[in-house]
């Protein structure tokens, strides 16, 4: 079984390589950006994962969030739906959170609080706000509209033996992002970001993303361990994705207010 998996990985990588050798010379910066977005945020038609987040403050104390994340893409659209079920912390167990993501306008978000047996719509004005208190913003978790940034390729560099494009993204409207620019080291093979550096308005590095583990899951290269460090405050967030599955055929029905309150157990375990 293990051997078969390895073989599959080898075959799938080999199959991509020729197209890449060819692509290397022709890909424009915005094409790289678009490939990166597809690989990082849109793999498969849908996805399910058990996500384990550790929020670590500068003194070393930890908060833990454990959640099941379900994502469904909309066909022929960049819209996505997210369904999140919280297992930890213990006193919020059963809380659910749903996001309809629209690239060109504000998200719709709903939250179910079991202690009050209440679904509340949460207005989301700012995708730059922190995702459940972590160092990731909503935008870091679900992506940013490509049309909002200017892209350029700064250089090409190896990271951990992998050839990468170093893509620079700078917001067209400076007020639309916290960073004045971002550098992404994008694997030429998988188009996944292996490292990202966020620079503030003064040009100082303030946030650092590192993909610590990349695995192939059902043919989709997936970042299974990632880290985001706020280099200024020394706060960091470690995220591990487990039990990742793609193309399960998640029902559209699940992404409704009704299921927020009573999610079917097969989707959340």
């Amino acid at each position: 079984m293990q051997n078969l998996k390895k073989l599959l990985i080898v075959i799938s990588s080999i199959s991509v390589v020729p197209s890449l050798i060819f692509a290397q010379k022709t890909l424009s910066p915005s094409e790289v950006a678009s490939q990166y977005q597809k690989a990082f945020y849109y793999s498969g038609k849908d996805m399910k994962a058990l996500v384990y987040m550790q929020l670590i403050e500068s003194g070393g104390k930890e908060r833990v969030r454990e959640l099941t994340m379900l994502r469904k893409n909309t066909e022929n659209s960049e819209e996505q739906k997210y369904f999140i079920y919280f297992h930890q912390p213990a006193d919020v167990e059963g809380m659910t959170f749903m996001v309809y993501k629209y690239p060109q306008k504000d998200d719709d978000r709903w939250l179910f609080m079991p202690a009050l047996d209440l679904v509340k719509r949460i207005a989301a004005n700012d995708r730059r706000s922190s995702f459940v208190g972590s160092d990731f913003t909503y935008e870091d978790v679900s992506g940013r509209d490509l049309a909002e940034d200017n892209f350029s390729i700064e250089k090409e560099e190896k990271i951990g033996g992998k050839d990468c494009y170093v893509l620079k993204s700078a917001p067209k409207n400076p007020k639309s992002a916290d960073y004045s620019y971002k550098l992404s080291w994008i694997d030429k093979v998988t188009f996944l970001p292996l490292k990202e550096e966020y620079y503030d308005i003064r040009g100082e590095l303030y946030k650092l993303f590192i993909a610590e583990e990349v695995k192939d899951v059902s043919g989709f290269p997936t970042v299974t361990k990632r880290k985001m460090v706020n280099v200024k405050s020394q706060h960091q967030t470690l995220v591990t994705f487990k039990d990742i599955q793609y193309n399960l055929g998640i029902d559209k029905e699940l992404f409704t207010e009704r299921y927020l309150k009573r999610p079917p157990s097969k989707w959340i375990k």
Partner: protein
Amino acid sequence: MEKWYEKGVKVNRLTIFSINHPRVTIILAFLVTLIFATQFPKIKTDTDPKNMLPATSDVRVYNDQMEKTFALHKDVIVLGIVNEKGIFNSSTLEKIERITDEIFRLKGVVLQDVISFTTADNVIAENNNLTVKPLLTGIPQTPEEMEVFRKNLFENPIWVGRLISQNGKTTAIYVPLEPGANGKEIAEKIKEIVKKEKGEEKYYVAGDPVARDTFGAEMFKQMALFSPLAGMIMMVALFLMFGNIPLVFSILAVAMMSVVWSMGLLIGLGFPVHIMSSMIPVFLMAISTDSIHIFNEFYFRFNEIKDKKRAVMDTINSVGAPVRYTALATAVGFGVLAIGGIIPVRVFGLFVAFGTMVIRLMSFTFLPAVMMLIKEDKLLKTSQRDSLEKGASVWLGKLGRFATGRPKLLLSVGFIFLVLAIVGITQIRVNNNMVKWFKEKSEVREADKIMNANLGGTSLGYLVAHANSEEAMKEPENLKYLEAVQKDLGNVELVGKTTSLADLVKRINRVMNQDNPPYEKIPEDKKVIAQYLFMFGMAAKPSTLDNLVDYPYQQANLMVQLKTWDAQAMQKVIDRVADYQKSHPNGNLKFKPAGIAYFNLVWNNEVLFDMVKMFGLALVLVFLILSFNFRSFKWGLVSYFPLIFTILLIYGVIGFIGKDFDMPISVLSTLSLGMAVDFAIHFVKRFKQRLAEENDLQKALIWTVERPGKGILRNAFLFSLAFSVMIFASLTPYITVGIFIAFLMTVSAFLTLIYLPAFIILFQKFLMPQKETT
């Protein structure tokens, strides 16, 4: 062999060398000075009062730990924005937005944690939606939108008093600084930013880092201005007294050399120049004037015997002993600080002691060498005026006759003053307030005043509630207890505002319940609280929550804003909470103070009490030195009196006029000891010498008042004059130093000249049992 040597006079070999080779001596002295001066470019300064205590001190360790736990910043600059017509208009709001954006660009600012209308999170209910977003997202264009903004702002208790004044005319931008950033420099840049804005708004820059770093910068300027100024005035006065330029310069040279040697050594050894050590030059200049006694005597002697070399020898022989002992007493008075607990105080004490020893060395080498080089004819002319029949000596003689004639009357008057002084001392208020180190009309103080009048208060203290177990801060009863403590603290005068997790939970509860005011309370269910806080954390800036509660929900931060930088205000807060805990016991929560307001309280107390403790020790040591010097406890006791009397009088006056007994005053205590003891030593030593030559007690006393007394008065006068220029300084501690020294010298000189003769007459049997009474 010279005559004086044959007479068996004891003169140090070093002095003999100096007299025989004056030029070599002077050149050597300057060369050594030059070596010390080469260290000056290495100067490092440290104006942060935090470093008064070592980084390992309990209060600093705990403060650092709490800052980490609650993601707080040590240093925060507050920019106050006032519009007398109210800030609720689009033009003012646009300015706030623009200024905030500009502040983001400043290096050294923690831009993620700048708090302003455009960054501070607010939880509001909007069309039955829950919204967490900054207070100001887009400038309101219509009166309706403006009203919504105003309503949302005033309904959030977390920000009222912090970001908006009750009357709606004042707002603020809180600018946290990265560690090591210079508060004054960033404050200057913020001032440049607001200068670009036109309109009726007024801007005020306040906060601890501004006061601290402005003080630091100002301190060096003041020292650079007033030390030379004091030196120049001393020079002019010396010239008028002695009429001989080389003499005048040599006294100043001794002062400068001791300053260069000790500061050079301090810098060379790698110590930073601190608030305390910046005062070393002034202190050394003060101490160096002791060498006047040498010139004073030299002039008298030369006028009598007209032989320069002989006069120098005789002078050193007669003044040598008192100069040695005054130097020793002064050095011990400061040196004793070296065994205290506060490092900058120890450094200060040690290097002043070192400088004092340098002065002593110069008195026996450099000064005799200079005297040898002065041309005799010039000396003859100017020293003519220094005979006992002339000038101040005449009325000093009268003073001596009065003091020896009416000892009992003087004693009674002294007793009355003593009682008054003690009454005054009981009135002394121990306090410290760094903002008050600036003058009333200064920018720093003005800004602080305006901010405190309108917002919750610029001085920030923390009361950290510690629970026994994790998750405890989600318990309704604990949050209710926090709420109750806050309410109780509201009764403390000068507490402008308190903020805690309880405020946030109440606010969310209200918003979750259709913004219904009765729901502004702590919910009864722990799970509800936990889910509220989780929900809030899903949308808000993490720091908003982190500032109030730690990660395991075991510690909560109750922020207390004080409307004054008085260290004692924080003490009142701590006492109040302790009282409340006594009357309303709660086994779960323990409160521990932290924050800059608490730190100010601790370091002030530590420095102050360390000083007072060492001062006490110095008093004992100086008494022992006096007794040893006179080989008699009785004489030690008598000569001790003017010293104690002077100190009591000064502190009595401080008590009566209501001046806070603060750090600068406590530092000056040691100086008062070192200086006041000099006069007594000179007086008693010279009197005893005289008595050995002349058997009439009263005559000997009057002679002492006339002749060494003139030296004492010259010394006191010179001092007072030089230091009185500091009254014009822009920082109040220097003004205090100026007034204090002038007062101290004058009082202790007169007390010495009046009370020592009176005492000696009165207690002659006790002091000199072997002598016949006159």
